[in-house]
């Protein structure tokens, strides 16, 4: 067993630990990083925590939080211990993610078109038609190249056996990719020592990946250089930092609803030189707010006429309208069937076992085992409104029981996954905290790409399973290790660099001012 003072008293036995083996030794792929931190010692790490705060503040890595009616800007908590995923493990995850997104996209194409999966009885009609996320107004809109899911964020967890499982699909406006980029940027500045011995796959190409996918999603009328915009609800949205970062890195305008207008089913933006046509809208606002004419009439965030323009095929809305029907928490239970139906394959990644409260027999089991399950509303996000049975008191359980009975379709239940834990810097010592992972998948035409790693979210409160940043969660830089192949040795002795050394660029006049001073020095009388 390897001894590290940083791990003294660390509880590695209660749950499976991502970094520490059953005998208390760091797992092989974590050894260099933990050893480097151990060498630094607690005091140096505490200083790095302060440096992290400074770096994050100066870069404005913040999210907006609403507390007691007021909105405050907070730095996104980043834990300094990176999460590490070996290359072979990642290859498996990546394969599973691609498969899942392909199937979900085919489902959306089907459900807003032919509806074969419903006719064939694989998914009950009622399941789709009763979903509040099924947008009837989007029926018949076929986005260019059949892509509905341009960006997906799938939440993965690991339990006691270490297998990766899907906990949730996010196909509407998944957020967090900017923190993946920023976490890496901040960690390289704050703890560069950690990177020395581990070859890590980069993540900063995500905006380019996304832009390329959006470009390929443009309608045929757009020509070779489609005008892409990112539509944000505005500066007070909790994910505004992400919107600005992505817009800036993609080099596209960040627009608000009031910047857009439609005329003759064509979308334009108001610029200093008049109207300019828009071809692709990467929207970061929810479906219902997109178009007050077709959806929520009181929405001030969207632009009247967007849906008609999308139907006319003059603009692509990414992600497509109505994707929520596929990431509805109740539909989650059917994803393995979708994969078999559309792809004729078995799922590569398992899903967390899920009970549908809308199904009488399953509801019965849920109501019987409330204290053992996690109950979630199907249309909520951010970890709000859910019940963690084993941690809830009887009164809370009763309240949820009543809600389920009143609206069975509105709830699902899942087996509690004993989420793995990960060493996390709490104060100046490492302590185990539960983690999940949200990888990001980008689809452009036939091409599906996965950003290596994704956003590891960590429940910073001891014992907590809630990883959402709005509820005390933080994040970690996530490293996917590269396969290491020995590099060919470069013989440098025989080659001379073409770059002229800086010192040769000085000329005599540049040195001129130094000479009298040197003379002065030499003329100084001996002491």
């Amino acid at each position: 067993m390897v001894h590290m003072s940083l791990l003294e008293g660390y509880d590695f036995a209660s749950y499976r630990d991502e970094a520490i083996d059953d005998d208390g030794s760091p797992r092989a792929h974590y050894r260099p990083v933990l050893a480097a931190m151990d060498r630094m010692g607690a005091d140096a790490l505490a200083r790095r925590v302060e440096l992290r705060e400074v770096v994050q503040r100066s870069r404005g890595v913040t999210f907006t939080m609403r507390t007691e009616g007021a909105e405050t800007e907070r730095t996104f908590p980043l834990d300094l211990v990176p999460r590490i995923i070996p290359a072979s493990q990642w290859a498996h995850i990546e394969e599973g993610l691609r498969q899942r997104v392909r199937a979900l996209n085919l489902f959306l194409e089907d459900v807003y078109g032919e509806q074969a999966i419903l006719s064939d009885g694989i998914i009950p009609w009622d399941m789709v038609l009763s979903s509040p996320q099924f947008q009837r107004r989007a029926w018949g809109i076929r986005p260019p190249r059949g892509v509905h899911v341009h960006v997906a964020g799938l939440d993965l967890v690991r339990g006691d056996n270490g297998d990766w499982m899907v906990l949730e699909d996010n196909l509407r406006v998944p957020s967090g990719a900017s923190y993946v980029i920023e976490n890496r940027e901040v960690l390289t500045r704050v703890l560069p020592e950690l990177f020395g011995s581990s070859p890590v796959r980069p993540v900063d190409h995500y905006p380019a990946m996304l832009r390329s996918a959006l470009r390929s999603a443009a309608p045929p009328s757009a020509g070779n250089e489609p005008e892409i915009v990112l539509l944000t609800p505005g500066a007070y949205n909790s994910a505004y930092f992400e919107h600005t970062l992505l817009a800036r890195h993609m080099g596209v305008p960040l627009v608000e609803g009031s910047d857009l207008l439609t005329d003759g089913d064509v979308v334009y933006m108001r610029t200093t030189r008049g109207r300019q046509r828009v071809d692709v809208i990467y929207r970061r606002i929810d479906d219902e707010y997109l178009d007050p004419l077709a959806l929520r009439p009181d929405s001030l965030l969207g632009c009247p006429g967007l849906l008609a323009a999308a139907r006319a095929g003059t603009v692509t809305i990414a992600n497509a309208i109505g994707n929520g029907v596929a990431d509805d928490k109740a539909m989650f239970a059917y994803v393995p069937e979708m994969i078999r139906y559309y792809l004729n394959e078995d799922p590569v990644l398992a899903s967390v076992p899920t009970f549908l409260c809308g199904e009488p027999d399953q509801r019965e089991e849920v109501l019987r085992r409330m204290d053992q399950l996690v109950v979630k509303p199907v249309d909520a996000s951010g970890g709000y409104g859910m019940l963690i049975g084993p941690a809830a008191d009887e009164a809370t359980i009763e309240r949820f029981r009543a809600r389920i009975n009143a609206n069975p379709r509105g709830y699902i239940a899942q087996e509690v996954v004993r989420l793995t834990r990960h060493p996390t810097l709490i104060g100046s010592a490492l302590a185990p905290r539960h983690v999940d992972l949200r990888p990001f998948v980008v689809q452009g035409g036939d091409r599906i790409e996965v950003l290596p790693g994704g956003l590891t979210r960590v429940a910073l409160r001891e014992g907590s399973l809630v990883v959402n940043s709005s509820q005390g969660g933080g994040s970690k830089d996530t490293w996917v290790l590269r396969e290491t192949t020995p590099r060919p040795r470069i013989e440098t002795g025989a080659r001379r660099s073409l770059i002229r050394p800086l010192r040769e660029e000085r000329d005599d006049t540049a040195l001129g001012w130094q000479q009298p001073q040197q003379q002065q020095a030499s003329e100084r009388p001996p002491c």
Partner: protein
Amino acid sequence: MLSRIAELVYWIGRFTERAEGVSKMVSSYHYSATQLGSLETRSGLHDLIAAFGEHEEDEESTFRSTATWWVTAGSNPTSVVSCIRGARENARRAREVLSLEVWESLNGTASALESLVASGASYDIVADRVPGYTRALFGVVETTTPRDEAWEVFRLGTMLERAAMTLRAVLIGAEAVERLSEDDPLALHAWTVTLRACSALDAYRRTSVAVPRGPEVLALLLQSATCPRSVLFALREVQSVVPSGTKAFGVTSRARKLLTAPLDLGDGKVPAFADRLLGACDRIHASVISGWRGGWETP
């Protein structure tokens, strides 16, 4: 460029330049009031009130209380602190057109300034510190921003604000010397303070060997084609980024003509002249904003 973003960037330029301008004026008048022993009295107030207006809620205002209102008061929407906050907030909303370096510089400035104020630093310390921050920001903008529309809009805001600030300083200087003879030490002092308020004292020393006197100072601050603090210089920059054939272009052009003609400085005419040019600055501003919002007016 989106019209909304253009306005945000324009105001980043104006707010930053304004924060610098107000800081320099307050520092300069503070320096003057300290020498004249009028910090705690109303007698030193004239310059400040003439420049920015009075703090109406302050019934027994002194130089110190008014200067504090104009520098560190968060409740004053045009104080130095509020200007920097405003610039930072605008930058937060227009980050996609700003370089990371510009954002970091502005964000760092805002945060340093908040800490300074929270530490209880007095208005003169804050006013002394701010120009260092803003110059650093202008340097970062200069060296990291592509010369595209965002740059032009930022430049427009900066230069229009600078022209207006210089005109305010000129107006105050001219009023201060109105009843003084040219050689009166107080007149020399007033012009030195004015040059300092515009960051033009060294430029003056390089172009004129004389002690600061009205005609030379006014020629430099109003008409110099080479001094970047002069009104003519600033308006030339404004004109270079305003679309030609528009009302804003026409107003700028006429203002420049006024400045290139020989100045008539006799009998209290300078304040009226400066005031007329300030009015032109206001019209340029209004015309630019309405141009971005709904189309450019022609003259």
